[in-house]
């Protein structure tokens, strides 16, 4: 590498501060701009529940909530999360008790290998915050950004329907999810 190129490499790898609140806890790190948010969560914060299933932003396995909105964390740089509040699958269960959506995936057999499940649960959390009583069509449309290679989706849809029922009868459990666009 020529000295000028090496200098440029140096500038481009220069680290930036990123302060986030993840599942209610504040974190501060120095990261390279090219670090994807999903790698930051998994490698720097040790939150390996968020999975990586593709290289093309299509599978949704990496879905988390950023300020309450479902986002594919593989399609955002960690530096862009500066000042934001993130919720990952690890933030769903409270005090040793599964979140109603997690419980419903368990009860309805909404998974087989489980690789896609964290992404589905986060996408479902966003969907149910927007629309607490979705029809089957609305559930399928709402989860269009998530792929499952095992289940055929039928039990995933059932799980979301069951979660919608429990969540509308049980006292509200707070996950911070945005009320959507304006």
């Amino acid at each position, binding site marked *: 590498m020529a000295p000028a190129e090496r200098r440029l490499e140096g500038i481009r*790898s*220069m680290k930036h501060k990123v302060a986030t609140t993840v599942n209610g806890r504040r974190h501060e790190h120095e990261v390279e701009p090219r670090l*994807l948010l999903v790698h930051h969560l998994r490698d720097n914060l040790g939150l390996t529940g968020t999975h990586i299933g593709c290289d093309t*932003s299509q599978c949704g396995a990496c879905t988390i909530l950023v300020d309450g909105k479902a986002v594919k964390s593989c399609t955002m740089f960690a530096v862009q999360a500066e000042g934001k509040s993130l919720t990952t699958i690890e933030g769903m269960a409270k005090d040793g008790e599964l979140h109603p959506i997690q419980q419903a995936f368990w009860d309805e057999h909404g998974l087989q290998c489980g690789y896609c499940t964290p992404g589905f649960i986060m*996408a479902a959390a966003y969907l149910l915050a927007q629309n607490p009583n979705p029809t089957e069509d609305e559930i399928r449309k*709402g989860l*269009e*950004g998530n792929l499952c290679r095992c289940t055929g989706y039928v039990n995933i849809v059932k799980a979301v329907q069951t979660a919608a029922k429990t969540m509308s009868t049980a006292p509200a459990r707070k996950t911070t999810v945005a009320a959507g*666009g*304006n």
Partner: protein
Amino acid sequence: MIPAAFEYARASSVEEASNLLSKFGEDAKVLAGGHSLIPLMRLRLAQPSALVDINGLKDLDHIKEDGRKLRVGALTRHVTIQNSSTVKEKLPLLAEIAGEVGDNQVRNMGTMGGVIAHADAAGDYPTLALMLDADIVTNQRTIPANEFFKDLFTTALAPDEIVTEVVFPVATGAHKYVKFRRRLFDWAIVGVAAQKMNGGWRIGLTNVGPTPVRATAVEEALHKGAQPEEAAQHASDELDPAGDLRASPEYKKHLARVLTKRAINQAEGRQ
């Protein structure tokens, strides 16, 4: 894959963003929703030397009615456009199209300006911008849509030019976007938009060439009183689409005709 290293800077005004782009040089790029750029960077099909993040420019995130115009800020997310009561009232076809872009996660991040500037042949908004004679407003000038899309991924934008707004006409007549694809979140294999406006039809085609296409031959046939079925035959008149993984050129031309008929019929409430 991990993207190649790049310099990163957050802009706090359009002017600063433009200055940063000039400073970083031609290989620098704007980072908006990131949902076209980051996938390309992950595959190392794009290796910008620097990214200028415009996500903090809240004044580019707006939807305004301005007489007979609808002004949509470049940083307005698909989800905002889809749910906007102003868009639903003044240009419902745009709200319909926004709701069909990608999936929930994509719509939470992707922006109007990003789709327009990226100029993917399968992008949905460019079709609407072209067929409705929208204006693309930048920090330097106003460019009519029919002079903006030059080629595949190629626009009239200069390297330090930033899209600030897209200005559409208000259109509230019969309308429909028919997007043909294999899975819900996919890009269009072919898409057709139909909008009734000023007593005539505007028809636009997505992904049947390097740039969006306005099907003027169909519009004229309809104007002369042809039935949708007959007029739609002209949808492929001057098309020379490239084949891709999902469709051959012949199939795309077939889809252009069939979907044009469907779009007009469905716009008018027939099946």
